């Protein structure tokens, strides 16, 4: 029994059916961690992208080194670092928050590149034309560059959303009860790992197929010429 839901070990099928609601509770935690981690990655990544684009090297260079560091070190170690080190500095977060923060920080390094690439992909001629039309730098960015960059940014971000979802099982090491952890607990108690772990694999496959279908749909639907902000 887990979360007050009993399981039925009379047959394989009955067992699979009886643990499905338990796994779905875990899946809900997985989704929450994915969404929170993704949100942190989007916001922090934007900060990195802005810092890396700063005109002085004093700002852009450290930002580039930090993002490289975040990208090149394992999420697992970053997670342990935050989990054990933050409390030493008096920052005590619930395990779920620490996990989402670790996910968000690691992926902020990736999203910052997406922002940068999306903005740099706007053709030079667009900047020159804005200049010829006497638009201010600010207006050029908000009315010309951003509307054209956004359709390039969104599908790439969607792919990272899927990646984050696949990294959520790591949070189980800091006691977060996401889907894989729930499946392991069921396995530990019933000595049957095959059914719960296979079901987790299947549920993941369904989730990623839906998510990548959504990304492809967005990619096809987004106007390539740009999205007006007003």
């Amino acid at each position, binding site marked *: 029994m887990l979360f007050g839901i009993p399981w039925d070990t009379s047959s394989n099928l009955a067992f699979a059916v009886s643990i499905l609601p338990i796994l779905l509770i875990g899946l809900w935690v997985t989704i929450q961690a994915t969404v929170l981690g993704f949100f942190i990655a989007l916001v922090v990544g934007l900060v990195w992208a802005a810092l890396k684009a700063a005109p002085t090297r004093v700002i852009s260079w450290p930002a580039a080194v930090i993002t490289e560091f975040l990208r090149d070190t394992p999420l697992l170690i970053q997670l342990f670092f935050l989990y054990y080190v933050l409390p030493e500095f008096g920052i005590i977060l619930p395990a779920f928050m620490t996990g989402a923060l670790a996910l968000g920080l690691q992926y902020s390094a990736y999203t910052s590149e997406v922002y940068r690439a999306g903005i740099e992909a706007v053709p030079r001629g667009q900047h020159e034309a804005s200049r010829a039309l006497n638009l201010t730098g600010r207006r050029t960015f908000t009315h010309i560059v951003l509307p054209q960059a956004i359709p390039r940014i969104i599908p790439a971000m969607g792919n990272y959303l899927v990646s984050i979802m696949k990294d959520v099982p790591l949070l189980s090491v800091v006691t977060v009860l996401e889907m894989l952890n729930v499946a392991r607990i069921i396995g530990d108690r019933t000595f049957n790992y095959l059914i719960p*772990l296979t079901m987790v694999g299947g549920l993941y496959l369904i989730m990623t197929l839906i998510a990548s279908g959504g990304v492809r749909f967005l990619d096809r639907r987004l106007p390539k010429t740009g999205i007006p902000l007003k």
Partner: protein
Amino acid sequence: MDWTQYLNPLMQGALVTIELTIYSTILGAILSFAAGIGKTARNPVIKVIAATYIEIFRGTSLLVQLFWLYFALPVAGQAMGIDLRLPPVVAGVLALSLNIGAYGAEVVRGAIQAVSKDQYEAAKALNFTPRKTLWRIALPQAIPEMMPAFGNLAIQNLKDTALVSLISLSDLAFRAEQLRNFTQDSTTIYTMALFMYFGLALVLTAMMKLLERYVSRWRVGAR
């Protein structure tokens, strides 16, 4: 405890991490080419097998795959009367390379399909067999195109090796966790571990750059 005393055990762990990275990158590269070429094949059976493999291993989480191979596969084996208990090293390398191979396969497929159509037509006109076209015409042009993506995947693989510590392989992540339990000095130990992984990643990036230069050496005015 002084930080220098952590160096020795962490270094031992780093060696295991390096070994795992080498084995799984090589096996992963072989799987990438097998499945990537398989997906471009005309034979529908080969195509479906390759596509299914790629979809399953890209669509699920690496940790789920690792736990499945380590915890669930023996149970499945028992049901069939075969002993499928894998030692942690085998389960770890297998999970890592199957996972990275599926990502690599998409890179290989993309690069092969990006070789211009004229090249295939010219090969046909010169009476090349399909096999010869692949080996002599398509791959030499496609491989340099794959290298930047392969570089990223190699780094990804290095980072992913940390997960095998969860099935009790004594790699760098495992040693760091062990030291922390022993000394409670989390800040120093995990900072050192992070920098060691970062150092390994920089070395790996440099090696992939060299490999990229080697496979594109035939290009006129090579990069």
